[in-house]
């Protein structure tokens, strides 16, 4: 049945706002439970290499120290991103994937273990170490497999991505306060530069992936793609194996010509079949997720043209498949992994985030033209995990003050996300998703804390309102 625009566009936006909200909610819960007034023990991370904030320092000292920390952090992030771009450029994909797998396992097992132990201590749950070890190893291993290596239920993959985002964000909230805020602003600025400037690493990554027509190794959350039309059934057993759900990106200015470069990609021909032979349902199926996917990779909102201009605000990425050697080993969510320390983690995540290309599609919107273009107006939305993390860090830090700031920052971030989507519709190129949300979030936090909070608290204590 035909769905209206509102349902489809709304459905996709919900598909990306929900996991962001869930991640933020989980981080707020963790922060509220475990470290309601900031972390008592200072966590030694790269972000605090230069200056370790003490509560007694003066305002100027804290500011300068925080600024230094943030600059160092951004430099390290940039470095690691360039390294990753280099690895991608020289096609060390195996190396990248092993690195990513290892990092994700570290995040899930080590950080996850520490958070779990803190929670167990808080609630005094009598678990013994054997059970705990088994559960943790299971959780981490299946998580790594779900995100990187295997085809798993989509909810599982999405859930694990949200959990990874939550763990890294919770770790970042352990930084001291001034450093955190300055870091957020610095990351937003870095985001703009890295994506929009021609020499920026993320921009280069996007260009590389477009030029090569390959997957970007990146940590990307992908909402469930919505099918455009009724599928009748899988092809018979002997015919085709399930195509790998790799993500293909292409520039909107270089729309893929059906027939060009098809020789090596089975998926393309399948997509071709999709559009040239409308009446053959079987060819539709060789291309699971058929719907174009909206991409907001990482800090990039990639815009694409929707079909018939309907879905202009969201970028579409056709999940093409390549004739890969291994079916199980798919880059469904190729991932930039985190390093064993937080900064490189963030670097990697951030770097890869922007790797979102969007499926360039011709505007004409006619369905037969481009692959994925007119594949129905609905598609999955993708958002890079770095965005999840920094949004959650902002909200987590706001939770350390009061829940009022949490609400204000949450609304600001979601509003910023919506605004970025609109900008995406207008500009139709890779856009950073961090700056608007972070700016609004920071502004709202300070406004709420300095102006709204005393106002409301005074009114309440004097029993005037509320």
């Amino acid at each position, binding site marked *: 049945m035909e769905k209206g625009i509102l349902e489809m566009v709304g459905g996709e936006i919900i598909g990306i706002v929900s996991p962001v909200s869930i991640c933020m909610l989980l981080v707020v819960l963790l922060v509220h439970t475990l470290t309601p007034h900031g972390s008592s023990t200072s966590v030694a991370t790269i972000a605090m290499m230069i200056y370790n904030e003490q509560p007694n320092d003066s305002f100027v000292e804290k500011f300068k120290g925080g600024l230094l920390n943030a600059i160092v952090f951004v430099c390290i992030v940039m470095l690691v991103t360039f390294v990753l771009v280099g690895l991608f450029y020289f096609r060390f994909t195996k190396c990248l994937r092993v690195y990513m797998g290892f990092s994700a396992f570290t995040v899930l097992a080590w950080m996850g273990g520490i958070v779990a132990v803190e929670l167990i201590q808080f609630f005094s749950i009598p678990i013994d170490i054997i059970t705990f070890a088994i559960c943790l190893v299971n959780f981490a291993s299946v998580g790594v497999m779900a995100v990187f290596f295997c085809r798993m239920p*989509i909810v599982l993959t999405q859930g694990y991505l949200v959990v990874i985002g939550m763990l890294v964000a919770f770790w970042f909230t352990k930084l001291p306060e001034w450093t955190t805020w300055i870091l957020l602003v610095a990351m937003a600025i870095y985001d703009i530069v890295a994506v929009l400037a021609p020499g920026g690493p993320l921009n280069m990554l996007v260009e590389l992936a477009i030029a090569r027509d390959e997957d970007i190794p990146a940590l990307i959350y992908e909402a469930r793609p919505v099918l455009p039309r*009724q599928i009748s059934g899988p092809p018979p057993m002997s015919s085709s194996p399930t195509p790998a759900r790799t993500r293909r990106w292409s520039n909107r200015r270089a729309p893929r010509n059906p027939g060009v470069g098809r020789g090596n990609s089975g998926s393309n021909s399948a997509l071709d079949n999709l559009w040239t032979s409308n009446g053959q349902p079987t060819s539709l199926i060789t291309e699971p997720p058929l719907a174009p996917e909206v991409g907001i990779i990482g800090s990039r909102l990639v815009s694409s043209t929707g079909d018939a201009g309907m879905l202009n605000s969201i970028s579409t990425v056709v999940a093409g498949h390549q004739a890969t050697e291994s079916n199980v080993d798919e880059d469904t969510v190729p991932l930039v992994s985190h390093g064993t320390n937080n900064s490189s983690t963030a670097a990697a995540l951030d770097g890869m985030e922007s790797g979102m290309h969007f499926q360039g599609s011709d505007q004409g919107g006619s369905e037969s033209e481009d692959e994925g273009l007119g594949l129905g107006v609905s598609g999955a939305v993708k958002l890079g995990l770095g965005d999840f993390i920094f949004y959650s860090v902002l909200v987590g830090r706001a939770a350390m003050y009061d829940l009022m700031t949490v609400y204000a920052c949450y609304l600001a971030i979601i509003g910023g996300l919506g605004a970025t989507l609109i900008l995406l519709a207008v500009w139709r190129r890779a856009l950073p998703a961090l700056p608007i949300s972070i700016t609004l979030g920071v502004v709202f936090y300070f406004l709420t804390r300095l102006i709204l909070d005393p106002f409301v608290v005074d009114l309440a204590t004097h029993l005037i309102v509320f």
Partner: protein
Amino acid sequence: MEGEPVQTTAADTEWGRQTDVSSAGSLQWPTIDGPLGVYNEEAVKLAKSFYYGGFLLLPLLWFVNCFYFWPVLQHREAEPLIRRYVVKSGIGCVLFSVVLLAWALTFAFGGERLFGSYWKHLAIFDIDDKYGPA
């Protein structure tokens, strides 16, 4: 339900699954993801690898196997190739969880009385106090 191939329930159509008219009780999509999941040989390979992977002390893989191929479990005649592995994974998962749960509950409720001084050595928060960050 399996004996009536042409019946389609509301739930089935909602998920895009309609029992095929031509073959009795056959299943359209073996995974819960429907058309977005794996099918055909891919599915068999995946089920097999999950089954063997679970023996590496990873019962969660067995659970994921059952969860992912839930439609295969539901329809008794569907996809015999996949069903072998999924059923065995299900049995393994249930067995392992029973054992694990029994042990965990014994530990939790037994406490000091049952284990004596060993209880302190095993409980997580005590270990964390001893070895964890100060």
